[in-house]
């Protein structure tokens, strides 16, 4: 399987040719990001959802997401309950926001784990010879060959259900992407002048990797992280939809959609709320990823 197959699950092919200008300072990046159209829209959308999610962590939602108001079941939007209530009388808006928090929590942890593990494996596989490369690639190929949702299902079934085990299951599915994404640039970076110079001068390997290789990898990795986050949100929602995600009463966007299926013709808002949040989050993260790519790696910008 070639580099091209990294396009699975939202990864983009690695740039051909290695190295590049050293990364710009963070403030400069942020300004450039907001000047870029996709980046700005993406940042705003993602920011809104993330803020709402954080608010829910701080308990700042209009109602407690799990509190049931039996007398107010299945009320429409508008009035006391901004987006209406569900079949148990729970406030849809608060639940949607709490659901966003839950999904983000799983997605962030899953992508963090897979990014760290995957990139480390990818860098090592790219840098060292076949002794390291062969097993890493073998494992990557095996994981790739599994249908992703089924792999996540099987992994999730092995442990007691909790948001953390779901995150691990999703992380395992995404590790191969990061391995691929990290390995490509390392292969070409290895041959560049400044890296070769560092080796010749006698810099220890770990230092070379940390100071010369990693900073050049960061752009690609950051872009991949945002794209993977959006896919992780969708995967977590799919798992919850199949009844195998974060257990209730923790609100999760997928399980809200699952519950709402029954109600969609009599209480459309119970389906619309989680749906809109999912769309906002996924669109936001994708646009953010596009913007970051334009900003961090202008050679690949397509405008």
């Amino acid at each position: 399987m070639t580099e091209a197959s990294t396009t699975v699950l939202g990864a983009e092919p690695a740039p051909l040719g290695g190295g590049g200008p050293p990364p710009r300072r963070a403030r400069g990046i942020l300004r450039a990001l907001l000047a870029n159209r996709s980046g700005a829209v993406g940042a705003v959308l993602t920011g809104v959802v993330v803020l709402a999610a954080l608010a829910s962590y701080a308990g700042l939602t209009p109602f407690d997401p799990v509190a049931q108001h039996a007398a107010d079941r299945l009320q429409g939007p508008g009035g006391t309950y901004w987006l209406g209530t569900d079949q148990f009388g729970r406030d849809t808006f608060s639940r949607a926001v709490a659901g966003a928090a839950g999904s983000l929590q799983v997605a962030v942890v899953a992508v963090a784990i897979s990014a760290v593990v995957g990139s480390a494996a990818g860098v090592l596989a790219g840098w060292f010879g076949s002794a390291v490369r062969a097993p890493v690639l073998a494992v990557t190929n095996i994981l790739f060959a599994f249908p992703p949702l089924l792999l996540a299902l099987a992994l999730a079934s092995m442990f007691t259900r909790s948001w953390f085990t779901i995150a691990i299951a999703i992380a395992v599915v995404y590790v191969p992407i990061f391995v691929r994404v990290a390995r490509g640039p390392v292969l070409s970076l290895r041959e560049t002048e400044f890296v070769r110079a560092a080796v010749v001068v006698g810099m220890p390997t770990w230092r070379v990797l940390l100071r010369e290789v990693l900073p050049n990898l960061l752009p690609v990795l950051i872009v991949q992280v945002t794209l993977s986050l959006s896919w992780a949100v969708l995967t977590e929602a799919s798992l919850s939809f199949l009844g195998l995600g974060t257990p209730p009463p923790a609100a999760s966007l997928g399980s809200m959609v699952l519950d709402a299926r029954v109600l969609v013709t009599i209480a459309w808002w119970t389906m619309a709320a989680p749906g809109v949040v999912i769309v906002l989050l996924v669109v936001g993260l994708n646009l953010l990823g596009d913007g970051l790519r334009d900003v961090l790696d202008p050679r690949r910008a397509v405008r």
Partner: protein
Amino acid sequence: MTRLRMVSIVLAATLALAGCSSSGGDGGSSDAVGGSGGTLVVGVTSDPDTLFPWKATQFQAVNVLGLLYGTLTELDKDLATKPSIAEKWEYSDDAKTLTLHLRKDVTFADGSALTSEDVKYSLETIKDEKTAAVAAASLAAVDTVEASDPQTVVLHLGAPDAGLVASLASVNLAILKKGSTEAELTTKANGTGPFTLGARTPNQSMTLEANEKYYGGAPKLDSVEFRVIPDETSVVAALQSGDVQMATLDDPLVAKTAGGGNITIAKTPQLSYHALQLKASTPPLDDVNVRLAIQCAIDRQQVIDTAAAGEGQVTGPITSPLYKSDPQARPCPTRDVAKAKDYLAKSKHPNGVHLKTIVSQGEYATSVNEAQNLKSQLAEAGITLDLEVMEIGSFVDKWVAADFHAAVALNGGRPDPDTMYGRYFTSKGNLNKVAGYHSATLDQLFAKGKATTDEAARKPIYADISKELEDQAVWIWLFTGNTYTAMTKGVSGFTPMPTGSLQYLRDASVK
């Protein structure tokens, strides 16, 4: 390889594989309307997991096999025991001999007549441990089976067993033809029931044809098709579009939204009960004060309202209509947190307890919501439920190993209270390890109940058992839910049963 060639290869592969796509007569239109009865399409969410009656525990399997295979006795809609293959029976004076007189007109699907040899074979093979039959323990009291003449079977019992005749109604004790094996019956069913097995596409659909020679009278319907629609919401969609005429719905919320238009929903209280099982054999639950504290801290109606949207009835231990427990007959019929705290203070753990509680997810609609509500109610009395939510495989493993302090469970009920609880709450019961409690009092009462064949005399005995179970707060019995049978207009003659059995499909008809 060009793209065109790749596409042609894919197409060729599809053609080749699709060539073997149909199986046994299931192609073409699905609704055959002909003859007086027509075809009734029942929407189900899964296929039966076995076609062997003696191993069937799954709800769907039990229901379908109940239509294919006959039993010695059967239950009517009030769960009273009625004759079926055995047209009459009598006990000897010492209640240690049960003589069953069989009907003469019972035939198997392959045409052969049923005789006492088949009954003897069936009962003996069920008892044989190598068969691993689910109901082997129901025949524990039976020492020998004698086929004295082709129409008579005599059971010699080691000790009286008043619940035996009722348990013979279970499809797990279906009478199979002498010499039948699981392997044979999995491919070709051979029963005495009102229907025979017609075409089948595994995991998709199963058609039962009316058995003209059924001894209870041929069914009005020509055939019944059980169509697998894996998703309950999609079943409702199918009912609403009229492609399916009947379905049994579990989830009260789905049932609520399905009604209206040309769909009626019949609500039937279930025999199975929702309970918080406690393992009284392990500390801290070995202290009756702790258990009573739990009992007093729970408002059962609140559990029903929050977990099942109000669809259920508070219950005591025994749910069968003839022996029903009075839910008020317990130390704390209503919630009393002060009293609960009192009990806890009196116990060996006045500072509160932590209980490892297992909960299944995905098996039935209300499990996790019940657990959450119980947890929040008990927290107010200083009792903490440490919930472990898991999928059904892990839950069963832990339940079977009795690896828990408490378990949120939905257990099946039986029409006879001895069959229902004897195996749990007697010291020799095969489920006693899971139940976690036994006492000399209960052992005596159960033995008495088993030995008393007179109905009127049995009732007070089981009332005593129920009281003892509640006074000792052995488990926390919560509520019984409902079975919702959805039927489109035009379906008539069907009576849902509290056991969920579909046996009255034999009287149903569809326009």
